[in-house]
C-alpha cells in the first residue's frame, strides 16, 4: 500500500464523455523508488488522489492490470476534479492507497447463478474491474448502466466487447434518449421479475451510484431476498480509518475501511443509508 502520497506521471487520458475522463498511470516507479510492497488491488478499492495546492479526494480504481497500470475515472463536479481535468499526459498527480475493502467476489459460479451489476453514472467506475473479474471467473452477469441522458453513457464500447447489448448489458436513460427510458431501478426491477419468471436465481447484486438509487435497489433486493453489495460515498479525510468522518450510525462502520463496499447485512442496520451524510466539518446533512 502507498501510505505517503507519491507523485506519478499520467500515461494516458481518455475522454469517456463530456464530463468524464479516465486517467491511467503506471505505479512501478513508485514501488521501486520507495521500495513499497505491492499487492494486487481488489475491485472496489479506492485511492486518495492529490492535486497539489488544491485538494486530495477519494477515487475508485476503474482499472488495473498485470503491468501495474492503474486508472481512475473522474467526473468533473467541483474544484479538485476540475483541476484534474486540466492535467495532461505526463503531468504528475499524487496518489496513496488503495484503501477500503473491495467487493466480495464468489470464488466460483456454483449452480450457474446470476449476478447483476447496476451502475449509476460515474458509479460505473469501480464496477468495471469488478465486471472484468466476474467475466474472468465465468460468472453469469447482467450489467445495467443508468444515466440521465445519452451523452452521459460511459464504457459502452468496453462493455460491448464482453457483453451483448439488451441481453446481458442494458442502458437506461432518464430521458429515453438511449436504451430503456426511465430509472435504472425500474429497469432492474423488471429484469429481476423476468429472470425469476424464467426460473433463474439471482444470488448477488453489485452496485455503485447515487445513494438514492442504491437505497432503492437495496430495498428491491430485500423484497426478493437477494444479497446486495453497494459502494457508498462519504466525505473522507484520512481514507484509512482514523479521523472518523466517514463513520455510519449506529454500527460505527467506517466507509473508508470496513467499506466502501457494504453488504445487505450491514445496510439493514444502517440508519444513515439513503438518509444523511456528513460534510467536511462532521455536520450531518440529509441526502
Amino acid at each position, binding site marked *: 500500500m502507498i501510505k505517503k502520497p507519491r507523485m506519478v506521471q499520467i500515461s494516458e487520458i481518455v475522454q469517456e464523455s463530456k464530463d468524464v475522463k479516465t486517467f491511467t498511470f503506471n505505479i512501478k516507479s513508485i514501488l521501486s523508488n520507495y521500495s513499497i510492497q505491492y499487492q494486487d488491488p481488489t475491485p472496489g478499492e479506492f485511492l486518495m488522489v492529490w492535486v497539489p495546492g488544491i485538494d486530495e479526494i477519494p477515487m475508485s480504481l476503474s482499472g488495473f492490470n498485470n503491468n501495474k497500470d492503474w486508472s481512475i475515472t473522474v467526473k468533473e463536479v467541483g474544484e479538485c476534479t476540475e483541476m484534474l481535468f486540466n492535467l495532461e499526459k505526463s503531468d504528475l498527480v*499524487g496518489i496513496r492507497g488503495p484503501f477500503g475493502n473491495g467487493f466480495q467476489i464468489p470464488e466460483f459460479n456454483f449452480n450457474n447463478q446470476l449476478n447483476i451489476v447496476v451502475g449509476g453514472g460515474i458509479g460505473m467506475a469501480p464496477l468495471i474491474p469488478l465486471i472484468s473479474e466476474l467475466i474472468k471467473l465465468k460468472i453469469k452477469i447482467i450489467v445495467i448502466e443508468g444515466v440521465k441522458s445519452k451523452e452521459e453513457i460511459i464504457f459502452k464500447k468496453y462493455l460491448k466487447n464482453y457483453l451483448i447489448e439488451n441481453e446481458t448489458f442494458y442502458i437506461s436513460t432518464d430521458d429515453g434518449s438511449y436504451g430503456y427510458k426511465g430509472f435504472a431501478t425500474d429497469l432492474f426491477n423488471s429484469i429481476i421479475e423476468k429472470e425469476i419468471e424464467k426460473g433463474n436465481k439471482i444470488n448477488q447484486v453489485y452496485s455503485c451510484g447515487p445513494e438514492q438509487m442504491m437505497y432503492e435497489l437495496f430495498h428491491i433486493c430485500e423484497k426478493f431476498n437477494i444479497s446486495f453489495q453497494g459502494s457508498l460515498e462519504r466525505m473522507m479525510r484520512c481514507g484509512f480509518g482514523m479521523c472518523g468522518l466517514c463513520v455510519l450510525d449506529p454500527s460505527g462502520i467506517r466507509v473508508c*475501511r470496513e467499506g466502501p463496499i457494504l453488504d445487505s447485512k450491514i445496510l439493514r442496520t444502517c440508519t444513515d443509508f439513503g438518509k444523511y451524510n456528513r460534510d467536511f466539518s462532521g455536520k450531518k446533512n440529509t441526502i
Partner: protein
Amino acid sequence: MSEFFKKIAEKPFILASGILGVSYSSMKRIFEGGAGAVVTKSIGPILRKGYKNPSIIEILPGTFINSVGLANPGIDNFISEIKELKQNNITTIVSVFGDSIETYTQVAVKAQDAGADAIELNISCPHAEISIICQNKQLTYEYVVAVKKELKIPLIVKLSPNVTDIGEIALSAEKAGADAITAINTVNAMVIDIETQRPILSHGSGGLSGKAIHPIAVKKMFDLYKIVRIPIFGCGGVFTGEDAIEFFLAGASAVQIGSALYQDYNAITNIINSAKKYLEVHNYKSFSDIVGNAHKFETQEAPDF
C-alpha cells in the same frame, strides 16, 4: 474520588481526542471495546471545516502527521451526538476549544448541559491558533480558571510537548483548578514532497502522532509525575499493552489511545487485554498498583569522570 475518576480508575483506557470522535457510533464501538471513557473530537463555538486534504498521512509505519485544523460541526450541532453518547451510557469527555476565554467557557458549559461527564480543554493543538495558550503559563492559568469556574464536572487540561518546560505549564493548570492533565498533544512536524517541492499537508505543517512520539510522551509523563499532584493521562503512541504499561510506570493514572485505533476496531481490546495480562503475570491487582513505579529506581544523574 468523584464518580468520573472512579470510572476512569476502573478502566484506565480512554479514547484520545480527534480519532474516531466525530459521531457517537464510533465512540460507542471504542467504549464497548473496553475504554473507560471517550474524548470527543475537539468542539468549538461554530462549525469549522478545518484544513483541506491532505490533512492526515501515515509517514512511517504507525507514525502519522495531521493538520485537521480543528474541523468540527460546532457545539450546537454536536449536542445531539453528546446526547446519543449519554443515552448509550458512555462516559463522555467533551474536548473543547474556542477563540477567547468567553467562547471556551460557552462551549464547555453547553457540553456540560448536554450531559458531558468531563471537559478536556484543548489548548495545545500545534497547527491552530490556540497553541499559543499552552506555551504560556499565565495564559494557561487564565483560561483554566475561567472555564473551571463555570463547571460542576471535572476539567482536564491537555498539554503540548512543544514547549521548553511542560512542568511549569502543568503546575499552572493545577494551580488554576484543573482536575487532571492529559499529556501529550501532537509534536510539531512537517513532511515535504520532493517531486512537487511543497509541504504535503495543505496547512504546511502538522502534528506528529503514533509510534514515533511514544518515547517523547513517556519522558514528559515521567517529568510531570514528579511535579503535579493531580492525575495525569498519558497520551502518545500507545499501540501495545507494553506501551500502555510504560505510561503507568512513568506515572500515568490512565492512558489515552489515538492513532493506533485506525486499525481494526478490536485494536483497543487487544491493547487492554495485553496490558491486563501484564498485571496478571506480575501479580498486580490493578493498574494503580504500578503507577509511578519507574520512579523507584536510581538513575545515574551525573556522568562518570
